[in-house]
């Protein structure tokens, strides 16, 4: 390779291999990023993208392979090394201290302190300057816990800019942003590239990758499939490379929709800090209908699910299930109304990882398996085995701990538990988050089967494609309100995107003032 070509590569990772017990996360990967390019790293969950970048950032050590930065071979053994090489990473889960101010968060670790003392004012100035230059509006004095998700991401980005990073790694940056925020992130990335920096975009979203990246590298199961120029490919081709087959959208069965199972009228709720999280929410769901709630995470969806399942107190309004008033009823009573709940937090709320599979299967229904307060372990094991087999939960025995199950398996466990109790209403929150294509297809299949059986389903998801594919009607939530309900057949993506960002759309489809 000529010296010139070599210099164009800002980062080169050769033959990188990383093994974890039982899986090869990165399998002899060759990956390079050029100066002034936005390079997408595309792949399903578990394909190895984050692992590869964690190696670049010094969080992991590769078992084999070498890394070259700006043509020189380097050894990155810690985040410190990566930072000194000009590598900055904006993680999927923000690494911020809620009690700190923006300034403190940005300078942490790079305080530039004279004899140990920190000059806050000087730092503030520099941050203001950077935020103006790159169009990242933020108040340096605000505390992190006061900021929205989009603003927090800006702080993370400022952290890297403050350290004069040259190579930016974004890990799934758009998952919690509105379409508008995502667009500004894209243009920010392009301006970084124009300045000569390199940007690596980890994502599993095809559309985003196509829009912002110059080149896209697809990973599948730890191996590089191909590196292509985004202008010479299309979404179908990329999806094919990601999963080796075409994405088949689920076929929604036509089901006769009958009586109302859930009715929510004018629901109001506050959180512990006194903020209004549910604002006059009203809708209903009928038997055999899937009602999808679209919206960026954090606009009241979780609180809505909690209110309906009895986990959150409502200060006003009504929740009526099967014509019985269940507002603020205890969760156990609501469950007795044949209401199932697949919560968003699989690991902390949906299951107890240190319980066995069997113990998890009966969670919420344990009284049904007991006589005079004593559990019938034979009955429990029998039931657990039956259910585990029916739903295909892969486990050596029902007595093993749930901790060792994969994400997809855990979700099967939760679905199995809720659906086999013959529920009439199912609340499911982000059911396919973090799951690979196979597991996602399984969850969709099970939901549609339930729909066919006449179960009313409330589907909350941040994946608009999922909502469009599965729901009969769609409600969009923004800041605790339902800003619009549309039947899917008449749904228009742009309209929904606007609603997600807060614009109310009137009957004629014209945009009103943003609420």
């Amino acid at each position, binding site marked *: 390779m000529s010296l010139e070509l070599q210099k164009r590569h800002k980062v080169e990772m050769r033959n990188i291999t990383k093994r974890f017990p039982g899986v090869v996360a990165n399998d002899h990967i060759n990956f390079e990023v050029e100066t002034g390019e936005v390079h997408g790293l595309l792949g399903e969950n578990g394909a190895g993208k984050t692992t590869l970048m964690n190696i670049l950032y010094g969080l992991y050590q590769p078992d084999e392979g070498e890394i070259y930065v700006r043509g020189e071979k380097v050894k990155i053994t810690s985040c410190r090394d990566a930072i000194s090489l000009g590598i900055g990473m904006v993680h999927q889960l923000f690494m911020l201290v809620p009690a700190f101010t923006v300034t403190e968060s940005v300078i942490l670790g790079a305080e530039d302190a004279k004899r140990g003392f920190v000059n806050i004012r000087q730092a503030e100035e520099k941050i203001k300057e950077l935020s103006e230059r790159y169009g990242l509006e933020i108040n340096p004095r605000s505390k992190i816990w006061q900021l929205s998700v989009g603003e927090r991401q800006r702080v993370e980005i400022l952290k890297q800019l403050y350290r004069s990073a040259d190579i930016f790694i974004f890990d799934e940056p758009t998952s919690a942003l509105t379409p508008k925020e995502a667009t500004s992130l894209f243009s920010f990335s392009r301006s970084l590239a124009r300045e000569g920096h390199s940007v690596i975009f980890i994502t599993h979203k095809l559309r985003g990758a196509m829009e912002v990246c110059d080149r896209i590298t697809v990973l599948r199961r730890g191996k590089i499939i191909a590196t292509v120029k985004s202008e010479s490919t299309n979404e179908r081709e990329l999806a094919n490379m990601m999963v080796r087959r075409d994405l088949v959208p689920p076929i929604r069965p036509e089901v006769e929709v009958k009586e109302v199972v859930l009715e929510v009228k004018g629901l109001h709720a506050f959180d512990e800090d006194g903020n209004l999280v549910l604002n006059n929410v009203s809708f209903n769901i009928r038997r055999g209908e899937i009602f999808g709630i679209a919206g960026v995470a954090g606009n009241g969806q979780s609180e809505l699910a909690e209110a309906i*399942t009895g*986990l959150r107190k409502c200060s006003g309004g009504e929740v009526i299930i099967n014509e019985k008033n269940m507002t603020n009823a*205890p*969760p*156990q009573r609501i*469950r007795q109304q044949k209401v199932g*709940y697949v*919560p968003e*937090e699989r690991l*902390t*709320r*949906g*299951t*107890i*990882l*240190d*319980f066995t599979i069997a*113990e998890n299967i009966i*969670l*919420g229904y*344990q*009284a049904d398996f*007991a006589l005079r*307060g*004593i*559990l019938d*372990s034979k009955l429990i094991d029998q039931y657990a085995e039956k259910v585990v087999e029916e739903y295909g939960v892969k486990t050596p025995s029902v*007595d*093993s701990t749930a901790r060792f199950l994969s994400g997809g398996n855990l979700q099967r466990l939760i679905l199995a538990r809720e659906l086999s109790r013959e529920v009439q209403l199912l609340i499911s929150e982000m059911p396919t988050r973090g799951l690979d294509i196979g597991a996602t297809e399984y969850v969709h299949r099970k939901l549609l089967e339930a729909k066919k059986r006449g179960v009313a389903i409330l589907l909350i998801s941040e994946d608009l494609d999922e909502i469009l594919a599965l729901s009969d009607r769609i409600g969009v939530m923004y800041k605790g309100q339902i800003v619009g309900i549309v039947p899917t057949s008449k749904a228009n993506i742009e309209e929904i995107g606007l609603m997600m960002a807060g614009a109310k759309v009137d009957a004629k489809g014209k945009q009103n003032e943003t609420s």
Partner: protein
Amino acid sequence: MKLPEKWKRYFGGLYSSVWSVVLGFAIGSIAITAAGADPIAAYAALIDGAFGSPYKLSETLAKTSPFMLSGLGFAASFKAGFWNVGTEGQILLGAIFAIWGGINFTYLPSILHIPLVCLLGFIAAGVWSMIFGVLKARFGINEIITTLLTNYIIFWLAHYLVHWPWDDPHVHRPQTFPIADSAYFPILIPGTKLHLGIVLGVFCAFLLYLFFKKTVLGYNIRSVGLSPDAARYGGINVVKMIIIATFISGGLSGLGGVGEVSGYHHFLEDYMTEGYGFVGIAAAMLGRNNPLGIILSSLFFGFLWSGSQYMVRGANLPVGVIKFFVGIMILTSLTGPIIEMLKRGLYRVRRKQTG
């Protein structure tokens, strides 16, 4: 290897337990040598002191009883996610109520008086502990600090009772009246100190084990301890479960205190139960908060404490050696991870060799 999963877990723990004990004895021997005594002679005195005669063995078992009961107490609330470090105070409170019940109600026959003092001690300590369970469950107040402070509140209460209202004028030292004979725990083997307390302890251990394994209430409490969110979603009343668990927890420690009064000393004096509650916590952690494991670990500490009293006499060491030794053992029980590190290091070496 067709060994069931559970066996592997138990035996894995055995390595680190053995290592901890050996390390503890090793460190102890350094200190003993520095003190000018012979470690071998000292340890011989220790072992002889713990098991050397039926009487000494009974002393060991008698010492084990408060360790076991307070260890079970700690484990009971730990299962609900509540760190009850007030075991010292709860033991003492149980002892106080045993005195109260033992000095009054003297007209009762043994068959009623003994259960009465047990009940008094259990309920008093249970209610006291429950207060802090409520504070945590309903108000989120950190229980480590609150329960830790309560130890001293009860300490001063006991001090007051011993020196003022219940002070026995016939005895020169500050000491309470002795309890009535009818409140004495039966001695299981005549001529020894082996009283009902140890039987109570083992019985409670089995009861607690079955409770957590087989009952709905036990299931509910365990889920609260492992994941309060998931438990709430599962329809379990988290606050109620914590309250129940802390009541049982305090009550068990209280029983340990009752045993000290009714079974061993028959009166109460200053510093009588000092340190027992903390050792109970250590026994609970060493026994992985499993009631059956706690039976073994509290026996170990009973052996240490009782035996080292003879080490003081036998090897002419100062009294502080008892707490020193027990403290060392508590700390070495935490060094288990060193074994893991060594194992991993050996594994890495072996891999390099085989290529």
